């Protein structure tokens, strides 16, 4: 038996691998082999499977996940616009091309409570820096005529990777069991 050939992974193994990599790549010399051992696969299959998820777009990026706050990027604002439906794709693409935002998404309006359909995120070291970026974006793309709102964050309660694990009903997953700050 050889360990260098890749073998197709079962659905169960793939689910297990997803859960493991969400926890982070182990810090040892052969981390993919360590993951493989944990799910009963082989190093090559693990590498190929993660590479495939990347190329298929299931994974946006593979690498170091930085906590913005820890490196001084403590300011972030969500900027929301009410853009006529016929223009939203065009403006979304132009915002992307500006290079000024970290994220740009279209989301539904929820009239009468919520009338904005285009969402951007800008991160910066302080409020002034973020405000300057917003002004620059608004001016350069001529967005002054659109109804807009800026929602700065003032407290970060949680920031971590997404979980796609099946819902379970164990005690540890219940909210009341996880409240530590009572």
């Amino acid at each position, binding site marked *: 038996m050889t360990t260098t050939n890749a073998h197709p992974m079962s659905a169960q193994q793939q689910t297990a691998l*997803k859960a493991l*990599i*969400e*926890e*982070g*790549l182990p*810090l040892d*010399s*052969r*981390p993919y082999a360590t993951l493989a051992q944990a799910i009963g696969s082989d190093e090559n299959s693990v*590498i190929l499977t*993660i590479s495939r*998820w990347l190329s298929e777009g*299931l*994974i*946006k*990026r*593979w690498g*170091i*996940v*930085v*906590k913005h*706050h*820890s*490196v001084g990027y403590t300011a972030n604002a*969500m900027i929301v616009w009410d853009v006529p439906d016929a223009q939203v*794709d065009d403006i*979304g693409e132009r*915002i*992307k091309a500006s290079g000024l935002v*970290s*994220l*740009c*998404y*279209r*989301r*539904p309006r*929820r009239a009468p*409570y*919520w009338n904005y359909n285009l*969402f951007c995120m800008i991160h910066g*070291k302080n409020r002034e820096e973020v405000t300057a970026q917003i002004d620059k974006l608004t001016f350069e793309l001529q967005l002054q005529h659109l109804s807009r709102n800026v*929602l700065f*964050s003032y*407290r*970060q*309660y*949680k*920031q*971590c*990777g997404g*979980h*796609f694990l*099946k*819902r379970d009903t164990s005690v540890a*997953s219940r*909210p*009341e069991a*996880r*409240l530590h700050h009572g």
Partner: protein
Amino acid sequence: MTQDQSATMTLLHKQLLDRFQRGFPLTPTPYQDIANELDCSEQEVLDALAFLREAAVISRIGPVFNHARAGSSTLAAMAVPADELDYVAELVNGYKEVNHNYAREHYYNLWFVVTASDDLHLKRTLNEISDVAGYPILNLPMEKAYHIDLGFKLDWS
């Protein structure tokens, strides 16, 4: 709130953060390959990454999933009275389906991302959070991504 750790970081720490937020090696010996590229030893790379994790500068080395494709997810918002905000935020944090949760300056002052294995699980989770918290949820799923997170360009000045 977390302290700014930039001042305690070495050149190696900064190089790692600048160059490996994406394109981390998918090779049998990724840390050795990084060491070769940055002209240092594998152990130095491992120690530097362990330090960054200990210092909470990084949360992990791993994937950023495309939520829209990896399951079902949404951005949710709630309007909570200011004096209840911390309490409700902790309730929301208690759900493992919640991965980002921020207080923001708006009538809708609590904003969180919920991800689940499928649409039904997502809907159930939103309903449960709303029931437990006692406030209605604004459910704003992504309809189209114009620009997604591709890592973070850090300005060390």
